[in-house]
């Protein structure tokens, strides 16, 4: 059997498929029907067909779909006969795959949510619409500017700086700690790394309680390392775009994390734990500390309201400047979409305070609009520290291959934690790989 023969026949097969597809469209319709060509479902008696828009949004929780469907339905009712939006959702960890493949297939959604760290990757490929010409006056002023700036980037391809997304889910990370365990051990919230290590060891009582939760497997290993790196004055990339993760501050940060784990200040063998597992353990009372976003408040209130905990800034190494780890997700327009004006209209619609307020509250995200940030809901003792922390939040740098950088850092942290390499070796290797990208 020759490959060449198969390939030639493959091409003929594609033509056969097109035929099949035409037949199929007649016989089967196209699934849910909402997207199938030529079946306008909105508007009765108008001459023109409604503009069809697709809106892809990640699932932050099992509530996300309902929240977004409400916005979409309201919009569709208001724009009956003119614009019709269909909601699509994807599990968070599959969102990047989905966007990459749909963009590659020229079938991306008109409006979509994405992680802000992907701005450079997608804008370099010309997939993200620059929003500056749409973002004007009063509408722009509603946003907390620090968050809006997170998606400003200058693609090498065009050399033109632009805003490529609107903040749609923001978080600042703080240290959750067990008030009762700390009180019992006579400790206060740690403010520097010595206190952190001390507290981690003193509050740990295996196998029932461990100190600091360290998720060194799965999707957030790199972000977790930023707590240490940034609070030791280190960074991933220097001003010239070269890796500096292996400088003294970087190595010191990873050294400290390895030391904390080796001296049993964390759960055993963190490379066997993902973020989801660590969150469950903290919630169930089996960890004394874990740094994460405001959503943990909501989860604790729902699942284990008796847990005695408090929130503090993540400790900074002595003599270094503190930095809050901030993460934002953005909402973007597909640059190759055919109805960008209508898409923007939908974006403006969904950014009404009432929708954002509800979304931020239910999903336990931080407000990205000034109006929401000052509301009563975000002035509670649980949430106020997070909202305030947002103002000096630090975000990951823009790099068109940031996904690769995340993988590289994850592997470096894992190698150091399992003892395969020393922290210095691991970070040197990481720096070399980052520079080779």
């Amino acid at each position, binding site marked *: 059997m020759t490959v060449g023969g198969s390939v030639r026949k493959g091409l003929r*097969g594609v033509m*056969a498929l097109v035929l099949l597809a035409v037949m199929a469209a007649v016989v089967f319709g196209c699934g849910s029907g909402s997207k199938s060509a030529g079946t306008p479902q909105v508007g009765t008696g108008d001459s023109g067909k409604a503009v069809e828009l697709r809106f892809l949004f990640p699932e932050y929780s099992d509530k996300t779909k309902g929240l977004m469907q409400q916005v979409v339905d309201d919009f569709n009712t208001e724009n009956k006969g003119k614009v019709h939006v269909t909601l699509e959702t994807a599990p968070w960890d599959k969102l990047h795959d989905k966007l990459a493949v749909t963009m590659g297939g020229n079938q991306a959604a008109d409006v979509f949510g994405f992680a802000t760290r992907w701005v450079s*990757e997608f804008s370099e490929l010309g997939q993200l619409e620059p929003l500056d010409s749409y973002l004007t006056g009063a509408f722009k002023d509603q946003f907390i500017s620090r968050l809006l700036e997170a998606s400003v980037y200058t693609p090498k391809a065009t050399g033109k700086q632009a805003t490529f997304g609107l903040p749609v889910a923001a978080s600042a990370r703080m240290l959750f700690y067990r008030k009762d365990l700390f009180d019992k051990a006579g400790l206060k919230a740690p403010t520097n790394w010595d206190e952190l290590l001390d507290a981690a060891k003193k509050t740990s009582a295996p196998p029932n309680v461990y100190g600091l939760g360290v998720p060194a*497997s799965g999707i957030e290993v790199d972000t977790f390392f930023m707590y240490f790196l940034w609070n030791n004055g280190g960074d991933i990339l220097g001003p010239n775009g070269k890796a500096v993760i292996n400088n003294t501050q970087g190595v010191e940060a990873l050294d400290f994390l390895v030391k904390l784990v080796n001296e049993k200040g964390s759960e055993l*063998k963190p*490379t*066997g734990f993902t973020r989801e597992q660590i969150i469950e353990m903290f919630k169930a009372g089996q960890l004394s500390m874990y740094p994460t976003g405001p959503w943990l408040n909501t989860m604790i209130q729902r699942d284990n309201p008796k847990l005695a905990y408090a929130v503090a800034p993540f400790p900074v190494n002595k003599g270094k400047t503190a930095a809050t780890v901030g993460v934002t997700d953005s909402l973007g327009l597909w640059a190759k979409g055919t109805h960008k004006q209508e898409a923007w209209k939908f974006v403006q619609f969904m950014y009404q305070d009432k929708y954002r307020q509800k979304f931020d509250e239910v999903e336990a995200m931080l407000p990205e609009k000034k109006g929401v940030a000052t509301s009563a809901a975000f002035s509670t003792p649980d949430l106020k520290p997070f909202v305030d922390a947002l103002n000096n939040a630090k975000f990951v740098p823009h790099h068109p*291959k940031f996904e690769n950088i995340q993988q590289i850092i994850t592997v470096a942290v894992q190698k150091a934690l399992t003892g395969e390499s020393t922290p210095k070796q691991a970070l040197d290797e990481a720096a070399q790989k980052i520079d080779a990208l």
Partner: protein
Amino acid sequence: MSQVPAPGYPASTGRGVGAQLNRDGLWAQVVRGRLAYLFLAPTLILIFAVVFYPIFNTFVMSLSEVNAVAQPVRFVGLGNYTALFRTPLFWRVLSQTAMWTGLVVSITTVISMPVALALNLKFPGRRIARAMLIIPWAASLMINAIIWRWILDGQYSIINALLFKLHLIQEPIIWTGEATVAWVAIISVGILVSIPFTSFSLLAGLQSIPAELYEAARVDGAGFGTAFVHITFPLMRQALMVTTLMNVIYVFNSFPIIWVLTEGGPAYRTDILITYLYKEAFRNGRFGPASAMAVITFLLLLAFSLSFAKLTAERERKGESSGNEARG
């Protein structure tokens, strides 16, 4: 992903294009065979339409520089391949793949043999035993893997709880925390989900052995052991080989168990080719090298199957095959 074993064995029969066919011209043969082509058409159209473009696409991407959204931008010849061959990580993942496939397939076969023999015995509850054994096979690999992820959880592992209770361990075993322990866990799960298919295949092989042979052996005073060595095992060779070939294809390409349990971590130590290439493609956006690995995977399996088919064919020519089995 697939629970259905791959049709690894090209169902070779002694027939085929016979001497009588060769006397006619090709066109005459084609005309005579038109009913055959008509019957084959739906299958071939389906396969060409759906499967061959993706395969073609994989080949093209493996020879191109591909951007992060899977569009080929430049032809680079064998560049992706040579770059791979220069990456030490690729060779390590390849050897991990060989270890994973080798251990899972061989241990599964060794365990499945007595299981098949037992299922072929008459004992009370045999039907229930057969039915029970099917359960892990019927549940998808994904679901099997998810259950095991929970059983092997770092904090809440029920196995650790058991070992604690038996005083076998002083501190919990973190099953996915380091490569060696993780491999033990992953390979054990791999074996458990492969046992049902293997056992049933071997059982099918056992049942095609004519009963008279055993009668004769018994008359000669042979015990179970002697009968197994001289009758069962030789006549089972064909079934064993086919089952092994299927298992190799199927385990080599198996994705969910490793993905759900470790995602190949820590630091690529539990990756196999298929999980590594998935990461390269979808996490790192390197579709070119990922496609090259896909092609390498395919070529390895192809080479393996062909040498296997050749081996089988040789055995058939030597007339060692047991011939057609009697159907009830």
